[in-house]
Protein backbone atom coordinates (compact mmCIF):
# COMPACT_ATOMS: atom_id res chain seq x y z
CA UNK A 1 0.00 0.00 0.00
CA UNK A 2 1.30 3.47 -0.83
CA UNK A 3 2.52 5.57 2.07
CA UNK A 4 0.90 8.84 3.01
CA UNK A 5 3.41 11.07 1.23
CA UNK A 6 3.05 9.09 -1.99
CA UNK A 7 -0.72 9.33 -1.78
CA UNK A 8 -0.55 13.08 -1.21
CA UNK A 9 1.79 13.48 -4.15
CA UNK A 10 -0.57 11.51 -6.37
CA UNK A 11 -3.51 13.55 -5.17
CA UNK A 12 -1.70 16.81 -5.83
CA UNK A 13 -0.74 15.57 -9.29
CA UNK A 14 -4.37 14.79 -10.06
CA UNK A 15 -5.40 18.19 -8.75
CA UNK A 16 -2.80 19.83 -10.97
CA UNK A 17 -4.23 17.97 -13.97
CA UNK A 18 -7.71 19.11 -13.00
CA UNK A 19 -6.44 22.66 -12.74
CA UNK A 20 -5.02 22.42 -16.26
CA UNK A 21 -8.36 21.13 -17.53
CA UNK A 22 -10.19 23.95 -15.78
CA UNK A 23 -7.85 26.56 -17.25
CA UNK A 24 -8.54 25.10 -20.67
CA UNK A 25 -12.29 25.10 -20.04
CA UNK A 26 -12.30 28.75 -19.00
CA UNK A 27 -10.38 29.66 -22.14
CA UNK A 28 -12.44 27.38 -24.34
CA UNK A 29 -15.74 28.81 -23.22
CA UNK A 30 -14.52 32.14 -24.51
CA UNK A 31 -14.36 30.54 -27.93
CA UNK A 32 -17.76 28.95 -27.45
CA UNK A 33 -19.32 32.28 -26.55
CA UNK A 34 -17.73 34.08 -29.45
CA UNK A 35 -19.32 31.62 -31.86
CA UNK A 36 -22.82 32.08 -30.50
CA UNK A 37 -25.29 34.94 -30.92
CA UNK A 38 -25.44 37.20 -27.90
CA UNK A 39 -28.89 35.92 -27.02
CA UNK A 40 -27.55 32.40 -26.58
CA UNK A 41 -24.61 33.20 -24.37
CA UNK A 42 -26.21 32.94 -20.93
CA UNK A 43 -25.35 29.25 -20.47
CA UNK A 44 -21.86 29.97 -21.72
CA UNK A 45 -21.34 32.63 -19.09
CA UNK A 46 -22.73 30.33 -16.41
CA UNK A 47 -20.44 27.50 -17.45
CA UNK A 48 -17.42 29.74 -17.71
CA UNK A 49 -18.09 31.15 -14.25
CA UNK A 50 -18.52 27.67 -12.82
CA UNK A 51 -15.19 26.56 -14.25
CA UNK A 52 -13.52 29.74 -13.09
CA UNK A 53 -14.78 29.21 -9.56
CA UNK A 54 -13.50 25.64 -9.46
CA UNK A 55 -10.22 26.69 -11.03
CA UNK A 56 -9.73 29.28 -8.30
CA UNK A 57 -10.56 26.72 -5.62
CA UNK A 58 -8.00 24.35 -7.07
CA UNK A 59 -5.30 26.99 -7.29
CA UNK A 60 -5.93 28.03 -3.68
CA UNK A 61 -5.88 24.44 -2.50
CA UNK A 62 -2.61 23.67 -4.24
CA UNK A 63 -1.08 26.86 -2.87
CA UNK A 64 -2.15 25.92 0.66
CA UNK A 65 -0.32 22.65 0.16
CA UNK A 66 2.89 24.38 -0.79
CA UNK A 67 2.54 23.58 -4.45
CA UNK A 68 3.00 26.09 -7.24
CA UNK A 69 -0.24 25.96 -9.21
CA UNK A 70 0.25 26.38 -12.92
CA UNK A 71 -1.41 29.22 -14.77
CA UNK A 72 -3.13 28.89 -18.11
CA UNK A 73 -1.16 28.02 -21.19
CA UNK A 74 -0.09 30.83 -23.46
CA UNK A 75 -2.28 29.39 -26.16
CA UNK A 76 -4.45 26.44 -26.95
CA UNK A 77 -5.12 24.70 -30.23
CA UNK A 78 -8.74 23.95 -30.96
CA UNK A 79 -9.53 20.30 -31.69
CA UNK A 80 -11.62 21.37 -34.69
CA UNK A 81 -12.68 24.65 -36.31
CA UNK A 82 -15.45 26.44 -34.46
CA UNK A 83 -17.44 28.10 -37.20
CA UNK A 84 -21.04 27.66 -36.12
CA UNK A 85 -23.31 27.31 -33.12
CA UNK A 86 -23.19 23.55 -33.51
CA UNK A 87 -19.38 23.63 -33.53
CA UNK A 88 -19.47 25.78 -30.42
CA UNK A 89 -21.71 23.31 -28.64
CA UNK A 90 -19.44 20.45 -29.70
CA UNK A 91 -16.46 22.31 -28.30
CA UNK A 92 -18.31 22.83 -25.03
CA UNK A 93 -18.92 19.07 -24.91
CA UNK A 94 -15.20 18.49 -25.43
CA UNK A 95 -14.38 20.91 -22.65
CA UNK A 96 -16.78 19.28 -20.22
CA UNK A 97 -15.69 15.76 -21.13
CA UNK A 98 -12.06 16.73 -20.64
CA UNK A 99 -12.76 18.21 -17.25
CA UNK A 100 -14.80 15.14 -16.30
CA UNK A 101 -11.84 12.87 -17.02
CA UNK A 102 -9.66 15.03 -14.80
CA UNK A 103 -12.16 14.98 -11.95
CA UNK A 104 -12.60 11.23 -12.12
CA UNK A 105 -8.85 10.94 -11.79
CA UNK A 106 -9.01 13.14 -8.71
CA UNK A 107 -11.59 10.76 -7.26
CA UNK A 108 -9.32 7.83 -8.02
CA UNK A 109 -6.26 9.47 -6.50
CA UNK A 110 -7.96 11.56 -3.84
CA UNK A 111 -7.12 11.03 -0.19
CA UNK A 112 -8.74 13.95 1.59
CA UNK A 113 -12.50 13.86 1.85
CA UNK A 114 -12.95 17.57 1.04
CA UNK A 115 -11.00 17.04 -2.16
CA UNK A 116 -13.25 14.18 -3.16
CA UNK A 117 -16.31 16.27 -2.29
CA UNK A 118 -15.02 18.99 -4.58
CA UNK A 119 -14.41 16.47 -7.34
CA UNK A 120 -17.83 14.90 -6.95
CA UNK A 121 -19.57 18.27 -7.14
CA UNK A 122 -17.57 19.40 -10.16
CA UNK A 123 -18.12 16.11 -11.95
CA UNK A 124 -21.88 16.14 -11.47
CA UNK A 125 -22.32 19.77 -12.44
CA UNK A 126 -20.16 19.29 -15.52
CA UNK A 127 -22.19 16.33 -16.72
CA UNK A 128 -25.43 18.28 -16.39
CA UNK A 129 -23.92 21.01 -18.57
CA UNK A 130 -22.58 18.41 -20.99
CA UNK A 131 -26.06 16.93 -21.50
CA UNK A 132 -27.30 20.32 -22.54
CA UNK A 133 -24.39 20.92 -24.90
CA UNK A 134 -24.67 17.48 -26.48
CA UNK A 135 -28.29 18.29 -27.24
CA UNK A 136 -27.31 21.63 -28.74
CA UNK A 137 -24.62 19.92 -30.78
CA UNK A 138 -27.20 17.58 -32.25
CA UNK A 139 -25.63 14.48 -30.83
CA UNK A 140 -27.95 11.49 -30.86
CA UNK A 141 -26.76 10.30 -27.48
CA UNK A 142 -26.92 13.10 -24.95
CA UNK A 143 -26.18 11.25 -21.73
CA UNK A 144 -23.28 9.07 -20.65
CA UNK A 145 -23.35 6.06 -18.40
CA UNK A 146 -19.90 6.77 -17.03
CA UNK A 147 -18.75 10.34 -17.56
CA UNK A 148 -15.02 10.76 -17.37
CA UNK A 149 -14.37 7.06 -17.15
CA UNK A 150 -12.91 5.13 -20.03
CA UNK A 151 -14.36 1.90 -21.30
CA UNK A 152 -13.08 -1.25 -19.58
Amino acid at each position, binding site marked *: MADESTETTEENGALA*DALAAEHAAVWGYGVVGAALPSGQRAPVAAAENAHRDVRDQLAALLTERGEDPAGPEGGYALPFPVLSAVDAAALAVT*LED*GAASAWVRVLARGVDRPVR*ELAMAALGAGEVRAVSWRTAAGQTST*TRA*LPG*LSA*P
Partner: protein
Amino acid sequence: MPPTALSGPRTFTRRTLLAVSAVGLVAVAGCTSSDDGQEAITSEQADELAGQVAVQETLVAAYELAFQADPALAAAAAELVTQAGEQLDRLRAAAPGDRPAGAAPADAPPVVGAQEWLRAQVAAAATSHAAACLDQTGARAALLGSIAAGLRGHEALLA
Protein backbone atom coordinates in the same frame (compact mmCIF):
# COMPACT_ATOMS: atom_id res chain seq x y z
CA MET B 1 -8.51 34.20 -32.15
CA PRO B 2 -7.88 31.63 -34.86
CA PRO B 3 -5.88 28.61 -33.89
CA THR B 4 -3.14 29.46 -36.35
CA ALA B 5 -2.48 32.72 -34.54
CA LEU B 6 -1.50 30.92 -31.38
CA SER B 7 2.09 30.38 -30.50
CA GLY B 8 3.09 27.11 -28.94
CA PRO B 9 -0.45 25.84 -28.63
CA ARG B 10 -1.45 22.84 -26.68
CA THR B 11 -4.01 20.56 -28.18
CA PHE B 12 -7.21 20.24 -26.19
CA THR B 13 -7.94 16.73 -27.12
CA ARG B 14 -4.58 15.16 -26.62
CA ARG B 15 -2.77 17.08 -23.97
CA THR B 16 -4.77 19.40 -21.86
CA LEU B 17 -8.18 17.88 -21.84
CA LEU B 18 -8.06 14.23 -22.49
CA ALA B 19 -4.55 13.48 -21.35
CA VAL B 20 -6.11 13.08 -17.97
CA SER B 21 -8.09 10.11 -19.12
CA ALA B 22 -9.01 7.52 -16.59
CA VAL B 23 -7.49 4.64 -18.49
CA GLY B 24 -6.83 1.80 -16.13
CA LEU B 25 -8.99 3.01 -13.32
CA VAL B 26 -11.59 0.37 -13.75
CA ALA B 27 -9.10 -2.38 -14.32
CA VAL B 28 -8.42 -2.52 -10.62
CA ALA B 29 -12.00 -2.23 -9.47
CA GLY B 30 -13.20 -5.19 -7.47
CA CYS B 31 -9.87 -6.14 -5.99
CA THR B 32 -9.95 -7.34 -2.43
CA SER B 33 -6.28 -7.69 -1.76
CA SER B 34 -3.18 -5.58 -2.05
CA ASP B 35 -0.89 -8.61 -2.25
CA ASP B 36 -0.62 -8.29 -6.00
CA GLY B 37 -0.21 -4.54 -5.95
CA GLN B 38 -3.86 -3.87 -6.54
CA GLU B 39 -6.18 -1.95 -4.30
CA ALA B 40 -7.23 -3.24 -0.94
CA ILE B 41 -10.79 -2.96 0.21
CA THR B 42 -12.02 -2.95 3.78
CA SER B 43 -15.02 -4.97 4.83
CA GLU B 44 -16.92 -1.74 5.39
CA GLN B 45 -16.12 -0.56 1.89
CA ALA B 46 -17.12 -3.93 0.45
CA ASP B 47 -20.42 -3.82 2.30
CA GLU B 48 -21.14 -0.30 1.15
CA LEU B 49 -20.28 -1.13 -2.43
CA ALA B 50 -22.61 -4.12 -2.27
CA GLY B 51 -25.28 -1.75 -1.03
CA GLN B 52 -24.74 0.47 -4.03
CA VAL B 53 -25.26 -2.50 -6.32
CA ALA B 54 -28.65 -2.94 -4.67
CA VAL B 55 -29.40 0.76 -5.11
CA GLN B 56 -28.63 0.48 -8.81
CA GLU B 57 -30.75 -2.67 -9.15
CA THR B 58 -33.65 -0.77 -7.63
CA LEU B 59 -33.08 2.05 -10.09
CA VAL B 60 -33.08 -0.27 -13.08
CA ALA B 61 -36.35 -1.72 -11.80
CA ALA B 62 -37.71 1.81 -11.46
CA TYR B 63 -36.84 2.55 -15.07
CA GLU B 64 -38.70 -0.55 -16.19
CA LEU B 65 -41.76 0.29 -14.11
CA ALA B 66 -41.84 3.85 -15.38
CA PHE B 67 -41.53 2.70 -18.96
CA GLN B 68 -44.39 0.27 -18.47
CA ALA B 69 -46.52 3.06 -17.06
CA ASP B 70 -45.63 5.52 -19.81
CA PRO B 71 -44.84 3.99 -23.20
CA ALA B 72 -44.08 7.41 -24.65
CA LEU B 73 -41.42 7.89 -22.00
CA ALA B 74 -40.04 4.45 -22.82
CA ALA B 75 -39.71 5.44 -26.45
CA ALA B 76 -38.08 8.75 -25.68
CA ALA B 77 -35.70 7.62 -22.97
CA ALA B 78 -34.84 4.05 -23.86
CA GLU B 79 -31.14 4.79 -23.85
CA LEU B 80 -31.28 5.77 -20.20
CA VAL B 81 -32.22 2.32 -18.97
CA THR B 82 -29.51 0.84 -21.15
CA GLN B 83 -26.99 3.12 -19.50
CA ALA B 84 -28.37 2.33 -16.05
CA GLY B 85 -27.87 -1.33 -16.86
CA GLU B 86 -24.32 -0.67 -17.98
CA GLN B 87 -23.68 1.12 -14.70
CA LEU B 88 -25.11 -1.86 -12.84
CA ASP B 89 -22.83 -4.25 -14.71
CA ARG B 90 -19.79 -2.18 -13.79
CA LEU B 91 -20.84 -2.02 -10.15
CA ARG B 92 -21.41 -5.77 -9.98
CA ALA B 93 -17.98 -6.35 -11.48
CA ALA B 94 -16.42 -4.09 -8.87
CA ALA B 95 -18.27 -5.48 -5.85
CA PRO B 96 -16.67 -8.58 -4.37
CA GLY B 97 -18.51 -11.36 -2.61
CA ASP B 98 -22.15 -11.90 -1.84
CA ARG B 99 -24.57 -9.05 -2.23
CA PRO B 100 -28.10 -8.39 -1.08
CA ALA B 101 -30.60 -8.23 -3.90
CA GLY B 102 -31.96 -4.85 -4.74
CA ALA B 103 -35.49 -4.16 -3.58
CA ALA B 104 -38.28 -3.02 -5.81
CA PRO B 105 -39.03 0.70 -5.66
CA ALA B 106 -41.00 1.64 -2.57
CA ASP B 107 -43.94 2.82 -4.62
CA ALA B 108 -45.24 2.38 -8.14
CA PRO B 109 -45.11 5.12 -10.73
CA PRO B 110 -48.35 7.03 -11.20
CA VAL B 111 -50.18 6.67 -14.47
CA VAL B 112 -49.79 10.39 -14.97
CA GLY B 113 -46.44 11.71 -13.87
CA ALA B 114 -44.29 8.66 -14.41
CA GLN B 115 -41.46 10.82 -15.71
CA GLU B 116 -41.37 12.96 -12.59
CA TRP B 117 -41.54 9.85 -10.43
CA LEU B 118 -38.65 8.34 -12.37
CA ARG B 119 -36.66 11.53 -12.06
CA ALA B 120 -37.01 11.39 -8.29
CA GLN B 121 -35.81 7.76 -8.30
CA VAL B 122 -32.80 8.74 -10.40
CA ALA B 123 -31.99 11.67 -8.13
CA ALA B 124 -32.14 9.45 -5.05
CA ALA B 125 -29.81 6.89 -6.61
CA ALA B 126 -27.37 9.59 -7.73
CA THR B 127 -27.29 11.07 -4.25
CA SER B 128 -26.72 7.65 -2.73
CA HIS B 129 -23.83 6.82 -5.10
CA ALA B 130 -22.25 10.23 -4.57
CA ALA B 131 -22.34 9.79 -0.80
CA ALA B 132 -20.91 6.30 -1.06
CA CYS B 133 -18.17 7.54 -3.37
CA LEU B 134 -16.77 9.64 -0.54
CA ASP B 135 -16.28 6.55 1.62
CA GLN B 136 -14.48 4.59 -1.08
CA THR B 137 -11.01 4.99 -2.49
CA GLY B 138 -9.23 4.49 -5.77
CA ALA B 139 -11.04 2.90 -8.68
CA ARG B 140 -14.16 2.24 -6.65
CA ALA B 141 -14.47 5.92 -5.76
CA ALA B 142 -13.92 6.83 -9.40
CA LEU B 143 -16.58 4.38 -10.54
CA LEU B 144 -19.20 5.50 -8.04
CA GLY B 145 -18.47 9.15 -8.73
CA SER B 146 -18.77 8.63 -12.46
CA ILE B 147 -22.05 6.74 -12.08
CA ALA B 148 -23.44 9.44 -9.81
CA ALA B 149 -22.52 12.08 -12.38
CA GLY B 150 -24.03 10.05 -15.18
CA LEU B 151 -27.27 9.83 -13.24
CA ARG B 152 -27.22 13.58 -12.69
CA GLY B 153 -27.24 13.79 -16.46
CA HIS B 154 -30.21 11.44 -16.60
CA GLU B 155 -31.97 13.57 -14.03
CA ALA B 156 -31.36 16.69 -16.12
CA LEU B 157 -32.74 15.02 -19.22
CA LEU B 158 -35.85 13.87 -17.37
CA ALA B 159 -36.54 17.36 -16.02
